[in-house]
């Protein structure tokens, strides 16, 4: 993790890594994403299913699985978990214009703002800075396979909210009544617009939400990769998914005691061997 990345993640609660998946790696990953999305549900390989998200999307293809320890992410994953990472979940999100409908949820909480503090309790998630490093025990990485442009919609975040000590007002954002779904534009949030090959990293303490995907001729495709410390919790991947994973990913997925250093963590860069 570079000093600049550390400063920005600390101040804002998120990082936007630009153009880090490139060339054949991006093309192969995007092709695999397309295969999962276009595959009829009854033709999906064992273990895969669509429940809102395309479950276990990271395991659908090696070009996606390798992103869990991508070179641009690996030093960050190691730092945020104090060299004790566990990969917990990795779904594929496919966002389209016609998936959105006006409803009560938009009225109550336009933008769908939430964070770990709201969802799991103030005591649930840690963000600390110490010994020149950041410790964050619940964070998410979003590798993107399609482009997002200003005005398209997608991920919104409230910079700095990962350190907020005051409760977020319930009516922080105002519903755009004419739209019925999205909030009115507000300087309190930033709409992140990654391009294919970018990766966005957020602390789960960062208040975040989503705007309706507006383009009708393009969709939004990205992985949702979740990381925790190895000594906290355990994965719930079904056996057919585990059977597909490389030894390195299996080690990353595994729970382990405090202080244990996994073999992959000793590596500066991880290459899947199978």
């Amino acid at each position: 993790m570079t000093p600049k990345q550390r400063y920005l993640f600390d101040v804002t609660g998120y990082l936007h890594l630009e153009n880090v998946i490139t060339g054949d790696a991006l093309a192969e990953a995007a092709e695999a994403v397309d295969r999962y999305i276009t595959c009829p549900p009854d033709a999906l390989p064992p273990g895969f299913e669509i429940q809102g998200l395309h479950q276990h999307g990271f395991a659908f293809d090696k070009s996606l699985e390798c992103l869990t320890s991508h070179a641009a992410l690996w030093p960050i994953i190691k730092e945020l978990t104090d060299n004790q990472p566990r990969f917990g979940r990795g779904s594929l999100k496919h966002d389209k214009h016609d998936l959105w409908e006006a409803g009560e949820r938009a009225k109550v909480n336009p933008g769908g703002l939430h964070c770990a503090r709201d969802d799991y309790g103030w005591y649930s998630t840690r963000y600390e800075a110490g010994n020149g490093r950041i410790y964050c025990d619940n964070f998410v990485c979003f590798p993107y396979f399609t482009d997002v442009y200003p005005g398209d919609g997608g991920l919104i975040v409230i910079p700095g909210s990962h350190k907020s000590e005051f409760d977020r007002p319930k009516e922080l954002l105002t519903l755009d009544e004419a739209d019925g779904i999205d909030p009115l534009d507000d300087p309190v949030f930033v709409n992140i617009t990654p391009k294919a090959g970018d990766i966005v990293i957020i602390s789960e303490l960062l208040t975040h939400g989503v705007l309706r995907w507006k383009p009708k001729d393009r969709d939004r495709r990205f992985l949702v990769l979740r990381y925790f410390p190895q000594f906290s919790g355990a994965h719930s991947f079904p056996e057919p998914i585990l059977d597909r994973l490389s030894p390195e990913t299996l080690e990353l997925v595994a729970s382990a005691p405090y202080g244990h250093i996994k073999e992959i963590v000793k590596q500066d860069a991880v290459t899947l061997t199978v």
Partner: protein
Amino acid sequence: MKFNKDLGIPLATTSADITQTNADGKPVVPLTQEQKYLFDKNGWLLFPGVLTDSEIKEMRDFCYRLKHSPETIPQHHRSTYGGPLEQLTDHPVVVAFGNEFLASSYLASDVCYGFRMEMSFLALRSTKDEAPFTFHAHNGNGMLRMPGDCHQYACLPGQAYSGLTRVVWELNPVEKGDGGTMFITGSHKAAYTAPDGAHTQDWEFWDTYSCPAGSVIIFTEAVTHSGQPWQNPDTDRVAVFNAYNSVDKRWSLSKPPQALLEKMPPKRQTLFRDAYVKGNITGTDFNMAL
């Protein structure tokens, strides 16, 4: 919850209970939850359009006289503490902010503010300035400063202390790009040294604001910030920079002229009292249980 000094007993008073009017008897409206949330998160907060048109005109004219013809102003009013600007020193918005982020409740009463005023100066900038104001990034990392450093920012769930606090009254409109004060939002809580880019004005993480005339921007001096050259040839920047601190601290020796101070209402005078704690209150007994 805040504790008093004895055995973890909670303070009996909240910010909404103290000093509910200013020296002119104007009501102080406590900050909203949104204002508290945004200030704590960002390190700065804009209150747009606080002053009336007549107040703005009178104050702006006074500022130009201060700069160009000070001899037309009585000696004791010849500063940004004086004339119509005096009412800014304890404007209800300032008192509301001070009550929440600066005041010690046991040093406040109906006739005594729970915080101090530190200093005041005029920033009258134009594109014709012979020596344009220069970009100069400073401060930040307020959470990693020990008590005694006025640039400290401290927070606990539901409460925060802003330390030395700047209050900027913009008496002309400011558009983005004109040259208002710049901030690295959230940097009052930064735990790390700013990267090289932060020392350059065009770094993408610098924020600023636009606002109508008569707006006020309040920021903790713990947030990384900077002035910048004024860019709008059609209007000047006419801004009054005031600063506030807690009653136990003093950053500068700035003070209104004695003749002006003596003419101020007694409650306003308490903004300029000496910096100490024990017994430093009027209108009620000193009682740290409050």
